């Protein structure tokens, strides 16, 4: 069924009895051409682009729980392409362009809202760094604009520009950045993939890989063996646990990142703003809650919940730039598990096992990458060659010294 305004009216007049399930509930077939492990945003996007771009094939997505129940439903929903390094910026700009056409393409309202993202500047050195980054963005076809404090105050009059310790000296804006309804991304890709014949198999945990003579021939699951010509792992957060079953150790640590939402408020925050002197980012959801977050907790964790020192740190960051935040109460907070890689950048690559591919290491930047990650991974799975914008996301970059380290932190995952 195609969704449209006409359809909504017709269903409203006929008691909403015509809506069917958005995707089929299927049992696994004995074998597929491609099996994608992980029914999150990236896995579902991969299946969709495989089906759309790379011909007719039998494709399955296997998911341990329910689709969209992991990090795609746990993030702060921000999209942007304000990176600096050559290995990153073309990829994230490709992703932003895919976001811009996503809803029409999927025939699904993902509430893509290009309300703009603003990175605040608090010192002269930071302005120099942001100007450089803005220029790198423009060179890669993205948009960037350096704003004065006056321009910022015109849009965000409530910001604390005269703070004694962290005065706001300007900002780097990307007007095409914004937010997306995160759950709808998973559901939209799932529905669109299903309409192209992809089998989405939920409650099906991968318990091992069948590897014969150095070649992966399928996956062992809680619902039996599923044969596959090619297997794509796409389970950021749990990558190390899954790939250990194929005998791999990864350049990844799992860390918990917390996020917060305030009680619902009238519209106060028109775009996304980030604090440049600490780590704090905030937007307002269409429901009215202020959605915000900050640093990861900083120690290995699979707990999907964090500790209080980071709560304090995040709230201090928020209070430093807009003190009115203190009048709102925090309604909910939660944690998600991040694949923190050794240079802060992701991996989309083949592995030492033929037919087994890997997508992970997204740190806490995976959501904005969803469309391009799916597209690039589908390209790699189908052609055996990396997509041009994702060619730098290799496993061997750590051995060859080609790290993509935006923050220059080195091999300390909790600092990226």
């Amino acid at each position: 069924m195609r969704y449209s305004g006409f359809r909504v009216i017709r269903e409203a007049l006929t008691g909403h009895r015509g809506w069917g399930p958005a995707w089929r509930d299927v049992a696994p077939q004995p074998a597929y051409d491609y099996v994608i492990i992980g029914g999150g945003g990236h896995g579902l996007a991969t299946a969709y682009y495989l089906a759309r771009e790379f011909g007719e094939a039998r494709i399955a997505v296997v998911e341990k729980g329910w689709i969209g129940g992991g990090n795609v439903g746990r993030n702060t929903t921000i999209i942007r392409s304000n990176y600096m390094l050559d290995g990153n910026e073309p990829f994230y700009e490709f992703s932003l362009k895919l976001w811009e056409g996503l809803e029409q393409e999927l025939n699904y309202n993902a509430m893509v809202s290009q309300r703009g993202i603003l990175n605040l500047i608090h010192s002269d050195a930071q302005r120099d760094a942001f100007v450089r980054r803005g220029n790198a963005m423009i060179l890669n076809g993205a948009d960037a604009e350096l704003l004065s404090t006056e321009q910022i105050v015109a849009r965000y009059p409530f910001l604390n520009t005269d703070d004694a310790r962290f005065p706001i000296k300007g900002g780097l804006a990307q007007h095409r950045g914004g937010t997306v309804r995160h759950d709808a991304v998973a559901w939209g890709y799932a529905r669109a993939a299903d309409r192209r014949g992809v089998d989405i198999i939920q409650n099906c945990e991968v318990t091992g890989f069948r590897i014969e003579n150095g070649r992966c021939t399928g996956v062992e699951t809680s619902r039996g063996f599923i044969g596959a010509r090619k297997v794509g792992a796409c389970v950021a957060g749990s990558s190390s646990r899954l790939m250990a079953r194929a005998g791999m150790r990864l350049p990844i640590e799992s860390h918990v990142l917390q996020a917060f939402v305030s009680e619902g408020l009238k519209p106060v925050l028109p775009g996304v703003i980030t604090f440049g002197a600490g780590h704090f980012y905030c937007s307002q959801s269409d429901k009215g809650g202020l959605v915000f977050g900050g640093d990861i907790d900083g120690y290995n964790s699979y707990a999907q919940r964090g500790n209080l020192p980071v709560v304090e740190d995040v709230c201090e960051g928020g209070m430093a730039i807009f003190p009115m935040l203190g009048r709102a109460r925090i309604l909910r907070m939660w944690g998600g598990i991040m694949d923190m890689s050794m240079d802060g950048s992701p991996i989309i690559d083949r592995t030492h096992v033929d037919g087994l591919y890997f997508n992970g290491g997204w740190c806490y930047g995976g959501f904005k990458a969803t469309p391009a990650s799916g597209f690039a991974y589908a390209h790699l799975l189908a052609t055996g060659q990396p997509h041009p914008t994702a060619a730098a996301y290799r496993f061997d970059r750590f051995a060859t010294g080609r790290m993509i380290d935006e923050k220059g932190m080195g091999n300390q995952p909790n600092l990226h």
Partner: protein
Amino acid sequence: MLIDHPLLGPRDAAEFVYKGDAALIHRPDGLAEGALDAFIEYGYLRDNPAGAHRELWFHEQGDRSWLVVTRDTVTHEITQVEMARDVARREGRSR
């Protein structure tokens, strides 16, 4: 989280800096055969288990000692805290 420091008693984890897997105590021998591969593995690859994890914490805002903390990464429960010095000596490091 509270870390039960062997010398100082229970301390807030916020006083500490987290380094990572306690296997980092065993730095490879740079002059040995295959040192390059050993260093790539040492520098970049991690076990990253879900469950018991031995890890290095530095008491930066305390007595500046290094500790080996055994902590469950699924529950955050800390089951053992030792001085990293003692662990290193026990595991054959002389320095």
